């Protein structure tokens, strides 16, 4: 314990909101009687800092431990070794200062859209009238006004996803952990939600950790993009994204910088040695943009 705390003090920068120190996550796989139990390392030696108000994106191949890492940040899972600090305090469990949008919608099927959005507010013991005002606002924000009294089974996948986002936003956590939140929506809605999320983020100064499989999305949203590799899940590199803010989909996507960042992340994911920046810059942007930007 003591050493971990010391590690934290040594390494953390002053404006760090989330500090991840030496996280390991090991699954003990129990096979059949004949086969011996064996360990599966899902995450190995993850060290990461997220600054206050930063937008960090995690990308990596399927099964590299992105969701597991998010669970650990949320306090829903305890790492096999290592620790997570939020505002300098070690995380011991979930709390309302972090909101997580889980992979899969995880809506309560017996609650209407509004009641789902109000769940966290009920836990927070927000009075009823106020709850309604807040849920109204966030239901509207995700474009579901008119659907407030529907049950989850009456919604499309993308709509459910948006309810889950509204639910996490509604109780106003400092930190938003989002696990592929836009995976199930159409391209147009996705771009709208991305713009909307950036707007909310700039307005509320929340710290966001965002998991995605889309390189485009990562490059568009993030201040930095952390690229993970699989088997075992390790942090390969963090790509800093210097695109100007505020960003909107319409003017960022055609910029050369966007193309370069996209290509770099793509290469890291392909496990290639990343090219020197100058070499790419001299080529036309169109060449640098890989045709298979979506994983």
């Amino acid at each position: 314990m003591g050493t971990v705390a010391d590690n934290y003090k040594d390494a953390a920068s002053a404006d760090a909101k989330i500090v991840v120190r030496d996280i390991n996550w090991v699954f003990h796989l129990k096979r059949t009687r004949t086969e011996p139990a064996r360990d599966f390392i899902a995450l190995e030696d993850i060290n990461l800092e997220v600054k206050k108000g930063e937008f960090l994106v995690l990308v990596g191949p399927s099964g590299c431990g992105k969701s597991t890492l998010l669970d650990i940040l949320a306090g829903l899972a305890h790492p096999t070794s290592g620790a997570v600090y939020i505002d300098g305090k070690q995380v011991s469990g979930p709390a309302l200062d972090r909101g997580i949008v889980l992979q899969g919608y995880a809506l309560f099927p017996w609650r209407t859209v509004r009641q789902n959005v109000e769940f966290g507010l009920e836990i927070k013991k927000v009075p009823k009238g106020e709850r309604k005002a807040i849920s109204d606002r966030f239901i509207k924000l995700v474009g579901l006004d008119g659907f407030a009294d529907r049950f989850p089974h009456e919604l499309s996948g993308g709509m459910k996803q948006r309810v889950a986002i509204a639910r996490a936003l509604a109780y106003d956590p400092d930190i938003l952990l989002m696990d592929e939140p836009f995976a199930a929506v159409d391209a147009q809605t996705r771009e709208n939600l991305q713009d909307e999320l950036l707007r909310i983020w700039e307005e509320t100064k929340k710290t966001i950790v965002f998991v995605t499989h889309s390189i485009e999305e990562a490059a568009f949203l993030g201040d930095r993009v952390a690229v993970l590799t699989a088997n075992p899940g390790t942090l390969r590199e963090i790509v800093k994204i210097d695109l100007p803010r505020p960003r909107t989909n319409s003017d960022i996507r055609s910029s050369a910088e966007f193309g370069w960042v996209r290509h770099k992340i793509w290469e890291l994911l392909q496990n290639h040695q990343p090219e020197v920046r100058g070499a790419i810059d001299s080529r036309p942007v169109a060449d640098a943009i890989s045709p298979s930007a979506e994983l």
Partner: protein
Amino acid sequence: MSTGTTQSPFFSWSRWLDRSSVLLFFIIWELLPKAGGLLETFIAPPSLVFKTLWETYQAGELLGHVGVSLGRAVSGFIAAALVAIPSGFILGGSFRTIERLVSPVLRFLGQLNPFSLFPLFIMFLGIGELSKGAMIFWVCIWPILFNTINGVKEIDPLLIKSARSMGTGIVTLFFKVILPAATPGIFHGLKMGSGTAFFMLIAAEMIGASRGLGWLVWNAQTNFQIPQLFAATVTISILGLALNGVFSLLEKALLGWRQNSHA
């Protein structure tokens, strides 16, 4: 619900069919005894049955028997639910290992035929209300227990995770997530239990009772009062239908959020 609009034409069509088939049934039933012979001796036509029913009602006996039967069924049922639902939560939720250990025993007990146990109940508890209450309790407890265990076990862990991520405490988690998520299972168990309870009660009253609808059937049979026999049987069916109706209403109120609840 929104599904209502697409289904209502089909519904009225099927309801019309239902009604006409019931009508047809009553006509055949009325005409059958007129064929004479054995049919006349053993089948009372509906006109006579409802006349007898009315007379029994007028004599002030019918409601008494109905009340006695319902009282037994309801008290046994409620007692079973009060034991089975909490046990189901404990076994299905917090003590999975114990559940795995005792499950075979429970399954075996659940398979024991209540009729063969009835003499035992009478031996231990006497011929009075207690033995019939015990019988109802016995037949109700198993479906409620097994369905509650399954309902709790099959709760989507993602829902629990999602609630926990919002800092939900254990008590709130139970009332706001575990209980509503397990309600379909519990409800299914209650519905099954109530059906068998009523069924078994009539049988138990036929074996050993001095009042109640089952006794009415048994009494009519021993005295060869065919119209009485039919009247009692019809009353039992009507009560059974009412029971189904009550559960359908409950289902709509409690489980209206489910996809298939209106089908």
